[in-house]
């Protein structure tokens, strides 16, 4: 198993090459179907497991900020992680890296490939991909669930979030903020009891 890397390279203060940052995010932008949450599994594989640039906790902390800021979660994540790796310039390098492939692919499709999307083989291929993406999102949920659902307190917050989303059809941002507020009061309660 690939458990707990206690210090990531970014915490250790290692300087990561701009070209490497660009290429990593370019690859991520090139291959992630299904938006921000499907991307979480791929980003974690590249950044946490393979390269050790960022720890799981840093990753989740950036993901929560990225959800709370308007715009594509993928772009926000790239900005924040690039910023952690190499400051402002790193942030723009990573953002450009993640945006450029979609831009180029769409431009190419718009210019040449539009008719092919009616082809049944292409449709079947994309259907297969979309099923894998469902698996991929579930995998991301599993990995972070294993990490965070270790206290009763966190389980309560997570269940509340799910009830808000599934039962009350709350806006995702509202659910995340409510979880933050509940987390705050549960934490305070715990601290008071400890005193």
């Amino acid at each position, binding site marked *: 198993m690939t458990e707990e890397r206690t210090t990531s390279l970014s915490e250790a203060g290692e300087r990561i090459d701009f070209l490497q940052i660009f290429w990593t995010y370019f690859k991520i932008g090139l*291959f992630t*179907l299904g*938006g*921000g*949450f*499907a991307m*979480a599994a*791929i980003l974690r*594989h590249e950044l946490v*497991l393979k390269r050790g640039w960022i720890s799981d906790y840093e990753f989740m902390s950036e993901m*929560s900020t990225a*959800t709370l800021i*308007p*715009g*594509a*979660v993928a*772009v926000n994540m790239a*900005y924040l992680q690039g910023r952690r790796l190499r400051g402002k310039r790193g*942030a723009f390098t990573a*953002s450009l890296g993640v945006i450029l*492939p*979609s*831009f180029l*692919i*769409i431009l190419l*499709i*718009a210019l040449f490939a539009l008719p092919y*999307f009616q082809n049944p083989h292409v*449709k079947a*291929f*994309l*259907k*297969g991909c979309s*099923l*894998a993406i*469902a*698996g*991929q*999102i579930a*995998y*991301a*949920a*599993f990995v972070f*669930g294993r990490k*965070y*659902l270790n206290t009763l307190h966190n389980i309560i*917050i997570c*269940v509340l979030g799910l009830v808000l989303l599934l039962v009350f059809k709350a*806006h*995702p941002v509202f*659910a*995340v*903020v*409510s*979880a*933050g507020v*509940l*987390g*705050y009061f549960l*934490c305070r309660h715990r601290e008071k009891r400890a005193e």
Partner: protein
Amino acid sequence: MRLLFQLLKSFMIIGIGAYGGGLVTIPLIQHEIVGTRGWLLFDEMASLLAIAQMTPGPIAVNAATFVGFRVAGSAGAAVATFGVVLPALSILFFGAPLIDRVKTNRHAAMFREGLQVGVLSLLFYAAWSYGSAAVGSLTQFFVAAGAFLTLVFLEGKIHPILVVLACGILGVFIF
């Protein structure tokens, strides 16, 4: 020139409103591009969005490039894409240092812990809603479950992108 400026403005509005990821953006794009501006017919927009969802990258970015191209060619594509990411990048540019400053604050840390668990709920929710939209039959369920189990048991050993490609190829044979 006027058209390009309008594109920039429309997609900046979409960029600000795109709050909470991909699928939230779609009604916004519809409102702005089909309703307010009348740049595209609804059917045209629906097929563009379907392709935007099927191609890699954030849906908002894909849709911006696509609509921009339709409205004003390559320059339009560039301007619309720039417009859709500009609000987020500006907010992050000025906001990220502030976030760093409150990071060491004890109250902010308590709030933050809850936020992270909230994102976890969002992940479970995304798995459920995306999964139930994508999976339409038992065979399809087994493909999705197979992808999930492969990723869990070979964590870190197999690249998630490979699993997606393999399922795509499998799809060509069984669908």
